């Protein structure tokens, strides 16, 4: 039986780059990729990818308004699910950004970088959002890290980051003024603050790992 992955299109964000990466990762795997605006496709899929960019309040509103919320919550119960960027931030209880409630799937909050006036090692000022490549330290062994060396470089574009209240949900951390959680994991859910779809081969490896993940 063919397995299906649904990329959730609720009208917000990096859909094209995520879709392209998932399609590429799925080549030759037998996994069917569906990029969809229909909740029934998400209900029917075996695993889902939840992208997201921009303001979390807008993303939450569109997720509800598009009728995708129920399907995403349904997937979160038992299907392998991969969140990216704001698609990760929405998984937590709450975000400091415009005081926005999240989906409450991972205990904790989403915080903003407080780096005003701080200076980096090379003498330049820290900039928010963090835009560019940075290292991800793997905080726990996880099937999605398979074949990806510890401290690998991934691509980030963000001002906010997840602060899970339980350390066991932090799958990866990154140093930017402070050490923050850059990947979260809980049971059948994995999510990254960085953009695997903009992280070249190792990002593709992560998507590939996700397509074969049997939590």
């Amino acid at each position, binding site marked *: 039986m063919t397995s299906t992955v649904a990329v959730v299109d609720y009208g917000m*964000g*990096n*859909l*094209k*780059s995520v879709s392209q990466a998932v399609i590429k990762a799925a080549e030759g795997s037998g996994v069917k990729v569906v990029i969809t605006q229909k909740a029934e496709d998400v209900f029917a899929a075996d695993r889902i990818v939840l992208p*997201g*960019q*921009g*303001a*979390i309040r807008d993303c939450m509103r569109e997720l509800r308004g598009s009728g995708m919320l129920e399907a995403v919550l349904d997937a979160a119960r038992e299907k392998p699910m991969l969140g990216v*960027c*704001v698609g*990760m*931030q929405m998984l937590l209880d709450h975000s400091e950004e415009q005081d926005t409630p999240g989906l409450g799937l991972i205990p904790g909050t989403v915080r903003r970088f407080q780096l005003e006036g701080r200076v980096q090692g*090379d*003498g*330049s*000022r820290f*900039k928010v*959002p963090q*835009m560019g490549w940075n290292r991800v330290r793997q905080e726990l062994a996880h099937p999605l890290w398979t074949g990806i060396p510890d401290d690998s470089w991934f691509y980030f*574009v*963000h*001002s*906010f980051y997840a602060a899970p209240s339980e350390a066991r949900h932090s799958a990866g951390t990154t140093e930017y003024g402070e050490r923050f959680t850059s990947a979260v994991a809980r049971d059948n859910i994995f999510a990254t*603050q960085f953009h695997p779809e903009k992280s070249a081969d190792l990002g593709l490896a992560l998507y590939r790992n996700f397509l074969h993940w049997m939590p």
Partner: protein
Amino acid sequence: MLLIPAIDLKDGHCVRLEQGDMSVSTSFGDDPAVMARRWLDAGARRLHLVDLNGAFAGKPVNESAVKAIIKELGNEIPIQLGGGIRDLDTIERYLDDGISYIIIGTAAVKSPGFLKDACTAFGGHIIVGLDAKDGKVATDGWSKLTGHEVVDLALKFQDYGVEGVIYTDIGRDGMLTGINIDATVKLAQALTIPVFASGGLAGIADIEKLCAVEDEGVEGVICGRSIYTGALDFTLAQSRADELLAG
């Protein structure tokens, strides 16, 4: 979406031209270093410099102003520079001085061999500036229109290993009539390297439209006249772009 303030240097001053015409220039400041600091303080993450006299002369002319800007900004943000760069020695000197990206325009079209050599010698530091009107490439400070299709040339340059393409619609530059979004997206879709939009940026609506197509590979926009006249508040515009695109 990277908003990149442009400082065009003419006779040591910061000017804006209309549609590349050297005789129709407006001066916006006589101290390029002060201008560079102003954009850094406004939140710029990259700076775009053009040696206008250099572009017309075919060799660097405003080098002292460029050095003053590098000195002022230190290593705070990367600087890209174009205008009259036609040989490898000039590229090497500018990179040594602290310029991060060299923009090759006319020379890329007229002597593709030079561009290829530049990419081989200074990989990762070469950006191509393609100026076009109705899909056709222009050269020599826009005074000559060639028969080359933008997309075809850009694909060839991508193969050489250029880091990105700045696409300028010369029918619009300095006119505040709005970015040519469709042509920019068409180019970005054809390429895998980043495309930077340029020419005609009018206001915040353009920024929002560009953010909507960022995922196609439009990674930034050159901000010229609009941020000097106040049609666009640079700081607010960059914040708006971050709000739309960052997590």
